[in-house]
């Protein structure tokens, strides 16, 4: 009888542990979801049109950006990417370089996800990961 109760308690604890582990994975997936998806051109146009409003909307948010690569630099474990629009305005994105990732080439279409910091001369993105290529 005692052994049966003990087995039930242990099973319940194990089930709870598995449920917590599974929910952690679920919420991790949720937190990786970007707040916005946009092209580099759309973001640069928004900042050019009304910097204050664009900063209010995008600064501090995780954004998935698609754009054409105009410059790439890698130093140690960090990379910096520039995405330009037709008006030669730029998004500057930096992040940790993942070993094994192919080096992008100027002219490639890049998809990256990062946190928008705002705009100085360029629109700045931090903590970026390259999703494509």
């Amino acid at each position, binding site marked *: 009888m005692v052994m049966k109760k003990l087995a039930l308690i242990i099973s319940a604890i194990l089930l709870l542990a598995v449920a917590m582990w599974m929910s952690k994975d679920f919420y991790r997936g949720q937190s990786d979801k970007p707040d916005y998806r946009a092209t580099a051109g759309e973001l640069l146009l928004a900042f050019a049109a009304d910097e204050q409003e664009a*900063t209010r909307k995008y*600064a*501090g948010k995780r954004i998935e950006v698609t754009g054409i690569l105009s410059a790439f630099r890698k130093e140690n474990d960090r990379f910096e990417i520039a995405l330009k629009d037709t008006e030669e305005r730029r998004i500057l994105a930096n992040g940790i370089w993942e070993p094994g990732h192919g080096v992008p080439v100027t002219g490639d279409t890049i998809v990256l996800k990062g946190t928008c*910091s*705002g*705009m*100085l*001369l*360029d629109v700045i993105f931090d903590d970026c990961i390259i999703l494509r290529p």
Partner: protein
Amino acid sequence: MNRVMKFFLTHIAVLLSLQGYAQRLVDRSGTVSFFSRAPLENIEATNHQVLAVIDGKNGEVAVAMLMRGFKFDKSLMEQHFNENYIESEKYPKATFEGKILDYSPELLTRDGTHLIHVSGRLTIHGVSQTRDIETNLVKDNDGIHVTFQFPVRLKDHEVDIPKVVVANIAEEVAVSGELHFQNTEQ
């Protein structure tokens, strides 16, 4: 956008669009850090995307950085910094605009090390203060390297620290920076 920021950004845009022989020096990825020493914990953050411009013709200097560009070890600390203390949504940038005192163009063209003073307006959290900042400038084959260190009293820029965290955040923080300029002469 307040008057100071508009003037500052216009100033940078004008400096960078000037045609002619004027020497313009730009650093788009300067570094500025701050350090707070308090009884309960020390706090440090670094910004690697500082924009700085020197006008070689007259020694005018402009520096700008996004407050969200400051990175902390603890993400919760970064969140509190942006949302509660510096209010990054209202005041997204910190700026300095000023001039090198006793400036001569040889400072930027002749190899050597110089201790210089830069005087101007430092704007943080929307509040400006006049500052005279001692700066080390080294000119060599690699370009111009500038380093500086100065204290900032949070109260001077109306950054309020709640009493409950006073033991965690110092009233005065140590700011330090490193800029590297290469010529953009046209």
